[in-house]
């Protein structure tokens, strides 16, 4: 059994309400934090080695220490609950089952950052979740954990839930800030970074739901204890939302020491692939991260077992590795068509591109059209190289990471499954009737030579 820090109490009956949550030891971290100096809390989070759980994996303590502290200017903490990465649904689960954990983490973080007004920006589709959060905030206020002079410490904090209108781009922190201000959700050009000029040009920290929730166990057990869980720079526990062709889809809290193979096939986690099918590929961190074929997923190019943590998943760079991302674990079995899958993702990114900068606006639509024609058996061999060229020209040339996020899945699909694309082009009629399946990846685990 692995250690559970976030979800250990998630199934206690009534934990959604304040009474039960408090009885189970909730809000201890607030009481502890209010007796500490804000800088010491930041130090504690730094010691814990906590990395941002939204996808980029940036060390949270370091992010907090970047916030500017000009005299007389209010600072803000914004919780990014705009969880829209396909395959990712961990934050929803956390907010739905144990909302007070997020509120508690946010109070501690607000105190550490000096934010007297904090916001939860939640995606519009989670309308029932925002009701749950509103209720939790009202309960916390009634019990003196929010509002003026929290627990007699002299610290004031108000918290508001802001519902988005359902745009993926608003999960990007500067687009989120624009949207929160009531404007069109276009990402801002950086610098200035939100830590200097965020919401209403005030210093702002934007953190993921899971990151803020993880502050609670860090405060309760101490940063150094927290850092002992996990391996290397992947400390603590991570929520993984597993979906796709697995027997037990759902949310799993892992301590980042287990292997990918164990995660997919053990009964404790995903429970293997249904109907006796074989594993074809997997996207381990939400739709934006590169897809990996089974052989590279289970073992790295060096021949080591691949583990479920930041370093091991990204071992080998993009040539033979992928990323931890947001933890949206999508498993594809042998019946899945990688071309169709890549087309679906391209369609998503085309639909969600904000249209501000030209490579992403035009490139995502172009890639979608080419992938559609290949999928429908109308593609040409030159289209595959063209796709590669388009994604190469989008990546790194855009304002925000959505361009990269649109380019990576296409690049990885061509890199690892080029034969399947070529088969689609060469067999236009057959490809409409049957799947390429596992022609190369089934039995032999062929490891390509790294560059």
């Amino acid at each position: 059994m692995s250690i559970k820090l976030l979800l250990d109490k998630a199934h206690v009956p009534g934990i959604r309400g304040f009474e039960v949550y408090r009885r189970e030891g909730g809000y201890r971290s607030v009481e502890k934090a209010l007796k500490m100096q804000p800088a010491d809390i930041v130090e504690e989070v730094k010691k814990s080695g906590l990395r941002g759980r939204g996808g980029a994996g940036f060390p949270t303590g370091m992010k907090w220490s970047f916030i500017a502290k000009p005299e007389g200017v209010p600072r803000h903490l914004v919780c990014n609950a705009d969880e829209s990465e396909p395959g990712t649904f961990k934050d929803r689960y956390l907010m739905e089952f144990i909302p007070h954990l997020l509120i508690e983490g946010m109070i501690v973080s607000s105190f550490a950052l000096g934010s007297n007004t904090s916001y939860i920006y939640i995606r519009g589709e989670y309308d029932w979740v925002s009701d749950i959060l509103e209720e939790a905030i009202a309960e916390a206020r009634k019990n003196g954990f929010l509002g003026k002079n929290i627990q007699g410490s002299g610290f004031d904090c108000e918290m508001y839930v802001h519902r988005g209108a359902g745009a993926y781009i608003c999960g990007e922190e500067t687009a989120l800030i624009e949207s929160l201000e009531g404007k069109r959700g276009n990402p801002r050009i950086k610098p200035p970074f939100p830590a200097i000029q965020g919401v209403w040009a005030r210093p702002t920290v934007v953190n993921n739901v899971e990151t803020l929730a993880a502050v609670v166990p860090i405060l309760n057990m101490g940063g150094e204890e927290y850092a002992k869980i996990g391996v290397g720079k992947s400390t603590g526990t991570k929520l993984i939302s597993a979906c796709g062709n697995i027997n037990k889809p759902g949310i799993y809290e892992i301590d980042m020491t287990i292997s990918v193979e164990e995660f997919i096939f053990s009964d404790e986690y995903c429970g293997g692939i249904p109907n006796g099918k074989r594993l074809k590929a997997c996207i381990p961190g939400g739709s934006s991260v590169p897809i990996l074929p089974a052989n590279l997923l289970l073992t790295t190019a060096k021949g080591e077992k691949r583990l479920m943590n930041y370093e091991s998943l990204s071992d080998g760079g993009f040539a033979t590795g992928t990323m931890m991302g947001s933890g949206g674990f999508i498993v594809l079995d042998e019946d899945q068509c990688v071309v169709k899958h890549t087309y679906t993702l391209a369609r998503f990114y085309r639909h969600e591109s904000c249209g501000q900068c030209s490579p992403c606006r035009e490139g995502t639509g172009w890639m979608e059209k080419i992938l559609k024609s290949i999928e429908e058996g109308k593609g040409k061999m030159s289209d595959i190289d063209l796709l590669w060229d388009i994604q190469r020209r989008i990546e790194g040339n855009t304002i925000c990471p959505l361009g990269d996020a649109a380019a990576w899945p296409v690049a990885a699909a061509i890199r690892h499954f080029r034969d399947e694309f070529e088969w689609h082009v060469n067999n236009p009629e057959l490809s409409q009737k049957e799947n390429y399946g596992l022609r190369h990846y089934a039995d032999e685990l062929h490891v390509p030579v790294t560059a």
Partner: protein
Amino acid sequence: MAEEVKAAPPATFKVTIDNITIDVKPGTSILNAARQIGGDVTPPAMCYYSKLEGSGGKCRTCLVEVAAGSTADPRPMPKLVASCRTNVMDGMIVKNMTSEKVPDARAGVVEFLLLNHPLDCPICDQAGECHLQDLGYDHGKAGTRYQFSRRTFAREDIGPYIQLHMTRCILCYRCTYVADQITDKRVHGIVDRGDHAAISTYISKAIDNDFSGNMIDVCPVGALTDKTFRFKNRVWFTKPVDAHRNCENPKCCGKATLWLRGDEVFRVTARKDEWGEVQSYDGKVGWICNTCRFDKKETKDWTIEGVTNISRHSVIGANKYKVLDVPGETVSKVMGGRAPKLLMDIHNVSGVNNPDIDLSDLQRPAHSGDFKKDPEPGLESKN
């Protein structure tokens, strides 16, 4: 960080762009530093407009490579950066045309910008002064690899004077900044997103304020065109002259460029500088009001100052100005003083392109009749 002991910042920053070093004021963007050098060193800019606050960063044509961040931190920047929105640091080394990555990335951006552009230059009023045309010639590739249908929109009238041709738009957002910062009330913005995003007036609400016409001037392509000039003439047939009038509107500078053909004023625009931006006078941007732009179409309304200075590379300057120093014949010089042996002088047998006829003298496009020994009767009076 507050604890750090800060050395007094130097009064000027040294920045090297394509091996040319220049001193600029702190807070200058790379693009503006490059404009101070001028020439090929300057990256193209489709969305950045120095007179509009917040513009830039969107089109990605001005991407440059930063080979060294500053003297203090000489590491190169990992990605290409948008030069219009990146400020120079002391000792920064920038590569524009000397970079290996930039021309490729820029050609990619040009291809992206042209994907959904209709390329209807032959019927577009902007042709000849279109930044996208210049960009395509300077940085683009000859063909496109796009083989799908382009996005299209219906033409839309925004107000009595401006027509929006959304199909041609490259979504630079400049016009929305004009609406935001120059006109009294913002009535148009961007609706929808991605490649189907569109400039809109929120259900065709007409723009009826005094400075809306400046949107036409800032539009880098033919998406916003002057309805009073629509299909009237090609810009390279008209002759630009600088003129001014005492405009009643206190916010209007009254300084404009008239585009003449003969004595007829075909259109009025604000005066533009070498980067295609509206000029400033004493630090104030020379926007003009709609009365000057759309209603004063008589030469008697204006005091004409003189011919507008047009770059000799521009098609607008073609065939309009006489060459004062005719270049000498070099053939005999090359041949060591010997005269070339002519088998036949083509001009003796052909009436086409007679060198004795100076096309600069014509007030209109050249016509085959102009080269005939006896000009066709009535041709001169046609114009």
